[in-house]
C-alpha cells in the first residue's frame, strides 16, 4: 500500500503539470485535439488524486490535515475539483490555464515534503477539526477563484475599451459571466470562511484549556472576513458592479495573500496555540 502511495505522490505533480500544459497550449492554440486532451487529463488527474487521498487516509488512519504539506495536497485537490465543477456548469473552458497552475504548485511542494505520519495527536483526529480545515480551505480557494476571474475581467475590459482584440478577447467568455463567476466564487468563499470561523470558535474551548482569541491567524481571518462582508454588503445594498466590485475582490485577495504569507513565515504552527 505504501509503495502505491509513494508512486502516486511522485506521479501527481507530473499529472498536474501535463494538465496545466494542455490548458496553456489550448489557450494559445485553439485545437480540437488539445481541447479533448485537456479535459481528459483533468479528469484522470482528479481520479488519481482522489484515490491517493483515499488510500492515504486509510493507510495512515487520519484525514490528511495534520501538517502543512498534507493540507497542501488537499488544497490542490479542492481547487481542481472546484474548477472542474465550474467548467462543467458554465461550459467556460478557457480559464483553466489561469487557475490550474495553483494546484500544480501546491501539489509539487507537498509531494517533495510530505511524510508518512502514522502517529498523530488525538486532537487532530477530531471531526470538528476536519470540517474546520475543509471549510477554511474551500473559503480561501473561493477567494482565489474570485480574484482570478476578477483579473480576467479587468484584462478583457481593457482590451475591449482600448479596441485591442488579442488572445484574451478571443478566448475568454463575456464580461458579464466573468463578473458573475468572480462574485459567486467570493460568495462561496465568504460562506465557507464564516462556517470555518464559527466551528473554530465552538471547538477552540473544547480542545484547548487556555485558548487565545488573539491568535494572529484568527485575527487576520476575521479582518479578511469583514472586508468581504463589506464588499458583499455594498453589492447587495448599493448594487456595486463591474470594475468596482472586481477591484474589491482583488484587494481582498491581496490582503489575504499578504497577511497569510507573513503569518506563515513568522509562525510555524497553524495557530499560536497549536
Amino acid at each position: 500500500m505504501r509503495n502505491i502511495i509513494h508512486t502516486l505522490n511522485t506521479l501527481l505533480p507530473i499529472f498536474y503539470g501535463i494538465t496545466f500544459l494542455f490548458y496553456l497550449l489550448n489557450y494559445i492554440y485553439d485545437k480540437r485535439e488539445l481541447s479533448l486532451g485537456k479535459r481528459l487529463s483533468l479528469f484522470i488527474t482528479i481520479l488519481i488524486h482522489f484515490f491517493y487521498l483515499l488510500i492515504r487516509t486509510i493507510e495512515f488512519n487520519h484525514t490528511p490535515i495534520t501538517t502543512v504539506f498534507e493540507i497542501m495536497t488537499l488544497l490542490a485537490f479542492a481547487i481542481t475539483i472546484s474548477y472542474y465543477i465550474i467548467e462543467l456548469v458554465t461550459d467556460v473552458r478557457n480559464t483553466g490555464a489561469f487557475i490550474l497552475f495553483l494546484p500544480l504548485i501546491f501539489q509539487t511542494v507537498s509531494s517533495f515534503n510530505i511524510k508518512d505520519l502514522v502517529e498523530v495527536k488525538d486532537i487532530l483526529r477530531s471531526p470538528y477539526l476536519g470540517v474546520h480545515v475543509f471549510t477554511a480551505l474551500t473559503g480561501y480557494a473561493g477567494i482565489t477563484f474570485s480574484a482570478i476571474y476578477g483579473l480576467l475581467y479587468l484584462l478583457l475590459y481593457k482590451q475591449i475599451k482600448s479596441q485591442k482584440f488579442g488572445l484574451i478577447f478571443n478566448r475568454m467568455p463575456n464580461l458579464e459571466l466573468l463578473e458573475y463567476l468572480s462574485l459567486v466564487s467570493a460568495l462561496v468563499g465568504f460562506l465557507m470562511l464564516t462556517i470555518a470561523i464559527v466551528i473554530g470558535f465552538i471547538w477552540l474551548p473544547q480542545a484547548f484549556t487556555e485558548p487565545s482569541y488573539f491568535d494572529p491567524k484568527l485575527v487576520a481571518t476575521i479582518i479578511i472576513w469583514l472586508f468581504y462582508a463589506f464588499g458583499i454588503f455594498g453589492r447587495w445594498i448599493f448594487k456595486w458592479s463591474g470594475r468596482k466590485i472586481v477591484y474589491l475582490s482583488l484587494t481582498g485577495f491581496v490582503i489575504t495573500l499578504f497577511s497569510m504569507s507573513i503569518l506563515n513565515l513568522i509562525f510555524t504552527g497553524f495557530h499560536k496555540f497549536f
Partner: protein
Amino acid sequence: MNIIAVAINHHTAPIELREALYLQENEIREFIKDFQSNLTKEICILSTCNRTEIYCIPNSVDLTYKEIQDFLLRKKPVENISPSNFRNYFSCGAVNHLFHIAAGIDSLVIGDQQILGQVKDAFTIASEENSIGTYLQKVFQSALKVGKRVKTETELFEGPSSISAAAVQLAGKIFSDLKKKKVLVIGAGETSRLTLQNLKQKEVKNITITNRTLSRAEELAKEFNANVIPFIEFKDMLHEFDIIISATSSPEPLVIKSDIEQVMSRRKNQPLCILDIAIPRDFDPSVKDIENVFYNDIDALQIIVNQNLERRQSQIPKIKKIIMEELIELFSWYNSLQISPVIRALREQFEQIRLQEYEFFKNKFSPEQQQNLELLTKRIINKLLHNPTVYLRKSADTLDSQGDLNLRLNIIKEMFNIQNQISNNDE
C-alpha cells in the same frame, strides 16, 4: 469521368451579368427537362446570386462547352456577354471546382456558410427531376461530405466576416445572454438590415428601431418583428437599452458625451454597449472614456473582421488536403466501377473454360474422384486469377491518370478476348 462543368461566377463576370443569368427554382427545373432530353444523361444546376454553374454527364463526347453556354443564353438572353465570362471544366477539374465551392473557399467572402446549403438544394432539385444518375449522385454526395468535413474539422466558419456580424460578436463579449438584452438600432438602411439579420440569428427578441423617416423604420420593424420609436424621442429613451447600434448617414454626431453621461447615471452605471457603424460617426468618440461604456466604431470592428479573415485564410491548406482526400476517394470509386466488369468477365471466361474441360474429362473419373477434380480445377483457376485481380484493384487506387488505367484494361480485354462478354453483361 466524363463530367463537364460550365460556370459563370464572381471570378469571371460582373454582378449585372450574374444577376441576369440567375435561375429561379422553376427555371432550373425547366432547364433540366429541356437540356436532359437533348444532350445529357445527368445534369445538376447550381444557381445563386454569385454564380450559375451547370454540371453534366453528356450523352456523347461531341457535346461542347459552347453548346451548353448557348443553351443557357437561349434560356436567359443576356447582352454584352463574351466567352471569357464563362469558365469551363472537365472531369477531375470539374469535380475539384465543385468541391472548392462546397468547402466555402470559392465564395466572394471566404467561408460563406450559405453555399453548402445551396449545393444541397441544387442536388435535391436535380434528384426530384430524376436528372441525377450514378455518377453525379456520387459527385454531389462527395461535395456535401467535403463541406461537412470542412465545418467540423476546420475553423473556416468561425468568427464574423462582416462588420455587422462583428458588431453582434462584440456585444456577445460584453453580455452573457443577448436574447434577454434590449437593443436599439438607429437607422433603417442596408447596414441596419444586415445587423438585424445577425441579431435575429442570435435570437435577440427585444429590438427597437428608430429612423428619421419613420415609414422606413416601420417597414424594417415589420420584417424583423421589432418595435419602433420616433426619431425625435430616441435620445430620451437611450437609458433603457443595453446595446445601441447606430448606422445612419447623418453628417453630424447624433449623440454627445454629456448625453451618455446622463444615460449612465439613469442606468445606475450598468454596462452599455455602443456600436457605431456609421460613417461619419453618429456618436462622439469620447463617450468611450465613460466607465462601463463600451464604444466601438467601424475601424474597431474592421480589426475583428480582418483577424477572422486572416484566420480563415490560414485554414486553406487544411481544406485543400480534405478536398484532395475526397477527390482520391471519388476517383478510386470511379475506377473500381470500370474495373469490376473486367474482373467479372475474366472470371466468367475462366470458369467457362474450366467447366468445358471438366465436362469433357469427368467420365474418365470415378464419382468420388469427380468431386476432387472439381475442387482441384476451381483451386487452379482461383490461384491463376488471384494476382491479376489484385493487380487491377490496386491500379484503380494508385493510377493517377485515367488514360493509364484504360490502357491496362484494354490490353487485358484484348489479351483474353472478353470485350463481348463485358458488353453482354452491361446489357
